Every structure is written in C-alpha cells, then in structure tokens.
C-alpha cells in the first residue's frame, strides 16, 4: 500500500476512553489534595505541593527506565518503532521531571529558605534533565533516520548507566560533607509525619500520574508515527 494511502488511524476507542479517565482522575486527585488531605502541622499549605511533586518524580523515573529499555530493544531488533517509543518516553519524562524540580524548588523556598540545595536527588534530577536535553540536541543534528535512531539508543544507554552512578557519587560526596542547611528540623530533611489520609492522597496522586503518563505516552507515540510517515513521504518526493 502506498505511503500516502496509509492513513493515520483515528484515535481508537480505548485511547479516547483513556483521555476521559485521565482527566477524571486528575480532577479527583486535585480534589483529594485540597479537600480530603489534612493540613500539615509544620509546613501548612505549601506541603500540599508534595503530592504532585512526588508523583511526577516517580512516574518520571518510569519514563527513564522505559527509554533505556526501548534503546536496548532498538539496538537488538532494529525496528523503528522502538525509536519512536524511546523518544516519546524521553520527552514525557523530561516534562515530568521538570515539574518535579520546579515544584520541589517552590516547596523548598518557604520551607528551607532556598530554592535550590545541592542534595543528591535534586541534583541528579537536574543532571538527568541535561542528559535528556543533550539527547534531543543529538537527534536534532542528524538527518538520516537510521543513524539518528542508532545514536539516540546508544546515548540513552550511556545516560541510563551514568545517572544512577551519578546519584551514588553525589550521595557519597554528601555523606562525607553534609550540606549545611539553615535549621535542623525534620522539615529540612524533607520528611514529615504523614497521616493515613495523606498517604492515601499520595498513592492516589501516584496512580493518577501513572495513568496520565501512559495516556500522554500513547499520544506521543502516535505523533511519532505520523512524523515518520511525513518524513518518509518527503524523502520519496525528493527522489
């Protein structure tokens, strides 16, 4: 079947349903955060940022692992679809981690007095963002789709190995030289006592963002497939 005739399928029913489910879950999560979860004792309202901050962080990690797996699968199987999946995972993970970092900074300011601290998780997240951006810049510089897919997969692998090592290095660095942050209350270590209602809200937020991730992931893959189709057609035209 000629490329032109191969139409991009409209959203399957399951995807449309997923869209609706995501929106509903998101609204429900917001509801739980603001109406159900109790007010925290030391930090007051700002603690409520934590629910979505943690959720996007954990789910961002999922994306990171998905990207690494897709990279390996591409190198092994040479099927272009893994490249599309890898790019989608990287992009969405990038967005989620960005939310994690910025929300975390906004939470940190009133709590610790500074927007940023060089603590292991935060610093590693920032470095991960740099790896992702480098990944996107790498892709931008290659026109040949096969080479682009190969190089991207290789870089994903290198990044996937180095980021955990980076995290451990910074932790090693910090245990020997602890960061001096203002006060030493439990708030500075980022922990606070969570009541059961808070825990429920937290897990619900986690679940919600996992669903949102899958939803966005699916859409991004479809976008990638359409982009691939257009690119192939353009190449055909040039011949």
């Amino acid at each position, binding site marked *: 079947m000629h490329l032109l005739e191969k139409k991009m399928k409209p959203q399957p029913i399951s995807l449309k349903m997923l869209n609706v489910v995501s929106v509903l879950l998101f609204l429900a999560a917001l509801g739980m955060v603001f109406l159900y979860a109790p007010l925290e004792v030391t930090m007051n309202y700002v603690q409520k940022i934590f629910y979505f901050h943690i959720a996007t962080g954990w789910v961002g990690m999922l994306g990171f692992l998905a990207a690494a797996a897709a990279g390996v699968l591409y190198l092994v199987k040479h099927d272009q679809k893994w490249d599309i999946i890898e790019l989608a995972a990287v992009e969405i993970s990038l967005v989620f981690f960005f939310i994690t970092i910025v929300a975390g900074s906004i939470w940190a300011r009133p709590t610790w007095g500074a927007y940023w601290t060089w603590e292991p998780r935060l610093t590693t997240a920032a470095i991960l963002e740099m790896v992702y951006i*480098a990944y996107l810049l790498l892709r931008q510089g290659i026109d040949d789709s096969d080479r682009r897919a190969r190089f991207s997969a290789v870089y994903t692998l*290198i990044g996937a190995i180095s980021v955990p090592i*980076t995290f451990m290095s910074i932790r*090693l*660095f910090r245990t020997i030289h602890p960061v001096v942050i203002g006060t030493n209350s439990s708030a500075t270590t980022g922990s606070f006592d969570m009541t059961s209602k808070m825990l429920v809200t937290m897990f619900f937020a986690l679940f919600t963002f996992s669903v949102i991730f899958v939803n966005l992931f699916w859409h991004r893959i479809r976008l990638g497939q359409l982009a691939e189709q257009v690119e192939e057609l353009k190449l055909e035209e040039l011949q």
Partner: protein
Amino acid sequence: MSNIRLTARQKTSSRFFGAVGAIIWKDLAAELRSRELLSAMLVFALLVTLIFNFALDLDPGTRRVATPGILWATFAFAGTLGLNRSMAVEKDRGCLDGLLLAPVDRSAIYFGKTISNLAFMLIVEVVVLPVYSVLYNMNLFNTGLIVVILLGSIGYIAVGTLLSSMAVQTRTRDVLLPILLFPVVIPILIAAVKASSGFLQGLALTEVMPYINLLIVYDLIFIAAAYMVFDYVVEE
C-alpha cells in the same frame, strides 16, 4: 615446523592487537610530525589556567583548596578539545572509512583511538602539573594524585571517544561533544576532585579509597559499555 602455524584464533587476536597498535602508532606518528593537536591542547590548557587565576582571585590558603577543582576543570576542557580534533581529523581525511574497510573487529578502532586520545590527554596533564606547581608554589608531585589523574583520564577518554565518534557524524559536530559528554562524566569529576583533594591534603587512605573505588568501577563499566556499543556507532 608445525609450531609456526598459528591457530585461527591466534591469527584473529594477533590481527586485533596489530590493528590496535597500528592505529595508536598512526596517531602518535602523525602527531609527532605535525604537533597540531598537542600544541592546541597545551596552549588551551595553559590559557584556562591563566583565566582561572584572574577569575578566581584567591589567597594562597583558598587556592590550595580550590586546586583540584581548577585542575580537573582544565583537564575536562582541554580533553574535549583533543577529542574533537582527533575524531574530526579521522573523519575528514577519510581515515575512518579506510579503517572500517579493514577486515578487523570494529572494537579495535575503538581501543586504538581511545589509547591514543588518552596518550594526548596524559601528555597535556604531565605538562600542566609542573607549570601549575611553579606558578602557585605548590608541590603537586604526589603519587596518589598521579594515580587519580590516570584513572580519571581513562574514564573520561573511554566515554569521550565513543561520544565524539557520534558527535563527529552529526551536523553540529564540535559543539555537541561537551553537551553529550559533561552530564555523563560527572561521577568522574566528583570522584577525581575529591580524591585529588584528599591526596593533596594528606588525608588517610581509607578516606580517599571510596572515591578511588568509584573511579575504578566507572572506568570498568564504561569501557565495557563503550566496547559493546561502538559497532552501532560506526556501522554504515
């Protein structure tokens, strides 16, 4: 008479080491004649040292503490320069294509380039250390420091050679290498600076060992990873 005949396996491995040796020899010999790469790296490294002198106008005490960081920043930047040039020359002169046509394992190219890149980086470091010692009246001739510099450079170049092989094949080329390399090489920088600092301050070996271990682990993991993955980077 029959002990002259090599087994097929021995022939392949001798071809492999032969290829690696040939690449190293080619790079070193070419550099000996033109001295382009080394002079560029050396001048650059010394200029960076100079810039740090004015950028961080430090009193002697603080300078002592900042020295490992300044040294490693210098090495990282000069290293990038060397990696870029080394690969660019390979590609532009068509040497890379020639090497790929040779009936030898692709990883021989990787090891050959890595070792010659490492040689250049070490030469630069060997020059920068005494110059720095003289300029700032510090004794940098410390065995521990030299070990750290060796281990750190190995890891840096192992990853750098792989990534520069990719970068040189893109449109953005030179600019891309530092962007790809630096986020991934941070464990080396952390461990190398801390270990260097430990040795220069004369800390107990037990305090420095975690960082040395980190360097060794990083080196092993990434040499293995780069070796496994290099084929994908140079196939046509």
